[in-house]
């Protein structure tokens, strides 16, 4: 198969689109393999290969961040590395761009700096456990439904497609998934309110935008994280700011 590619190239603060042609691409190659092929071609002809991120190439690490034809990860319900060239028409022109969000500055070409996500996690995405001998696995009973729901939230790979898809550059889906994954489980209860407060504040400090309930994030998420977790985060945040921590030693008057 042959493709015309319109790729965002950036080195420094300004970028632009450049056109490329790749030929003899196997229909069974993945999108990233197609880009590898292009880069081989560019290197051989003395050109400058296109910088893009990838690692596991099996949909678990979340580093392969490309907006393909206006949709993060190509909009087919998986990650970019799980996208195959047979999904495209022979001869098609494909536009490839980086995630665009102020909080994700472009490092080079298609590579963005997503360390803002790491800082959100650092601000509250942990639980306190004692570090002695490993406890017996079933000492803390957890309802299977709750465990499953926590696992659904935990399946977020931190790729940032939700931010890339959001017209407001909001990181609500990611942050909500991370908050819910710990907040649903008994082990996450002690820091639950503190966690939601600090992670939401960090999210806003990092320059992500406000949610307007468009639902674009859920549509773009390769792991099908539901916006129900955003509702849950909103509820917890309201509680954390309006009622917790309550004044434990406050006095009451009977008259």
């Amino acid at each position, binding site marked *: 198969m042959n493709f015309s590619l319109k790729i965002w190239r950036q080195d420094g603060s300004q970028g632009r689109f450049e056109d490329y042609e790749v030929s003899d691409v196997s229909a069974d190659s993945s999108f990233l393999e197609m880009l590898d092929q292009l880069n081989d071609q560019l290197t051989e002809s003395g050109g400058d290969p296109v910088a893009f991120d990838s690692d596991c190439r099996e949909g678990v690490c979340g580093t392969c961040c490309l907006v393909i034809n206006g949709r993060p990860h190509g909009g087919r319900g998986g990650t970019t590395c799980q996208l195959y060239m047979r999904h495209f028409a022979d001869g098609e022109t494909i536009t490839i*761009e980086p995630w665009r969000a*102020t909080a994700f500055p472009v490092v080079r070409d298609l590579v963005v700096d997503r360390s803002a996500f790491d800082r959100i996690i650092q601000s509250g995405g942990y639980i306190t456990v004692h570090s002695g001998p490993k406890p017996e696995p079933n000492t803390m009973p957890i309802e299977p439904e709750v465990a499953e729901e926590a696992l659904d939230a935990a399946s977020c790979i931190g790729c940032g497609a939700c931010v890339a898809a959001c017209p407001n550059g909001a990181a609500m889906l990611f942050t909500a998934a991370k908050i819910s994954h710990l907040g649903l489980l008994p082990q996450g209860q002690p820091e639950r309110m503190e966690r939601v407060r600090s992670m939401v504040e960090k999210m806003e400090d990092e320059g992500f935008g406000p949610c307007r*309930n*468009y*639902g674009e994030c859920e549509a773009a998420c390769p792991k099908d994280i539901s916006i129900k977790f955003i509702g849950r985060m909103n*509820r917890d945040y*309201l509680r954390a700011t309006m009622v917790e921590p309550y004044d434990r030693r406050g006095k009451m008057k009977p008259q």
Partner: protein
Amino acid sequence: MSRRLVALYRSQLGKKVVVAVTGLIMVGFLVVHLAGNLKVFLPDPEPGVADIDVYAEALREIGVPFLPHGAVVWATRLALLAAVILHVVCVLQLSAQSRAARRGGYAERRYQRATWAARLMMVSGLTLLVYIVFHLAHLTVGVVEPDRFVHGALYYNLYEAFTRWPFVLIYTVGMAAVAFHVYHGAWSVFQTLGLDSPERNRLFRGVAIGLAILFLVGFLSIPFAFVSGVLGPPPSPPEEHAGILQAGFATPADNAPSEVQR
């Protein structure tokens, strides 16, 4: 408490809560306002007096003699004014933050889920703002056409305006904006406040669609009833009828319900 409110307001999530709560207050007002407006279709309780005029006077009399005449009406107006101001200020601040979070767009952007109503909230909202100012100037203050406006003679004022197409058209645009805004907004409130869930989603989406249709059809039934002749001219000249109201309905709050039943 106030410290907590300030902390909430500082955050984007908190501003969204303010938008949601004030939006909900305005939706609540619209439901009551619609119910009141539909009294225009009720028969005259007394020869020469339109039912809606009695109702308007009764609203001013709520709480009398414990509260001054018109107190409840004015309190409601102030509360609504505060709601509109808070709603708009928060929306504008949030909108500036979203633009800052997303400098530079995609060469090609294909939406997958967002509805037109959601994407055009700012357009429908700003249309509403202009509409609200016009509506108050027209039917509350009466400065749009002072020679065709008599304070307290609601039926007469409605008849004068809505028998002419330009007014019908302006109100149609206003109500289309309301319907569009509420179609997304009345659901969005539940999500913002964290009340929506997959099990309740159909209910809340249904409420939003239902309210949008109710407002569109309910409010517009009035101008269209006048322009099509379903509703006729006022039962008496407006000056005379203001006199009847004052003389005949000294305590309209007590009289009105039984009059309506008859």
